[in-house]
């Protein structure tokens, strides 16, 4: 993971993860990801974890931490390139948290819900589900 005080800006060729805690956010039949997993709420931003400078063990540890917050099962993660967000006129900005220095947010979502769903649908189409 990044060192505190040395977190670079997000680059378009990076890969980011969205942890899947709800079983119906992915389709077990073909391991695809549903748009529901990429909908921004409650703030109009989407929480992500950057792969950059993170080992797989560190990524999964963060996923387990997110799942443990609500005593839930970690099913896996949805990996997607930052470019998928940029192509939807969104921005991905670094937002390191004390518990997750690799944390980032996808921002600039439209406020209209169906427009959010359309962007989430296209991004989900490009995501890869990775089993925990």
């Amino acid at each position, binding site marked *: 993971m990044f060192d505190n005080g040395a977190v670079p800006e997000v680059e378009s060729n990076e890969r980011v993860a969205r942890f899947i805690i*709800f079983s119906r956010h992915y*389709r077990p039949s073909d391991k695809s990801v549903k748009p529901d997993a990429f*909908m921004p*709420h409650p703030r109009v931003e989407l929480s992500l974890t950057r792969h950059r400078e993170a080992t797989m063990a560190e990524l999964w540890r963060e996923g387990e931490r997110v799942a443990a917050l609500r005593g839930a099962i970690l099913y896996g993660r949805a990996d997607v390139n930052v470019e998928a967000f940029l192509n939807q006129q969104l921005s991905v900005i670094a937002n390191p948290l004390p518990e997750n220095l690799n944390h980032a947010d996808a921002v600039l979502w439209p406020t209209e819900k169906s427009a959010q769903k*359309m962007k989430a*649908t*296209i991004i989900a189409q490009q995501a890869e589900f990775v089993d925990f």
Partner: protein
Amino acid sequence: MNSVRDRSESISTYIDRAVKAPQQQLRQSRLGHHAALDELRKVWDECRVANWDGYDALPVSQGTYEAAYRLIDSLPLGFPSPAIGAEPDGDVTLEWRKSRTRTLSVSVSANGYLHYAGLFGLGQRYGTLSHFADAPEELIRLVQDL
């Protein structure tokens, strides 16, 4: 007079039962959507608490559950059944998917609006529909266009 009223009530009860019983049987058959309604119940059980997705999701309310129930129950018999999910703002989602490039997701909330977005091959469509009781004709057409 009472016997005339009693007789007319028993006739109307008989007719009502005679008409509704086959409808109920059809709804419970493979043509109905009871499997989707069961799935809806499971989703609501899992998502009626806050933070059900680990990212501060709002709970799915009873009003939203009931709106989704009515919508699914009003789908025509034999119509494709949706897969059920939920979104972090507390809406229930209904998804119809034929392939990676032909998929429609509809968000159901308690306020009577349906927000949808879909991929139709090379095309995309998204928008909002009003929903008061039965499934809107436009929703039926969207699914048929997949």
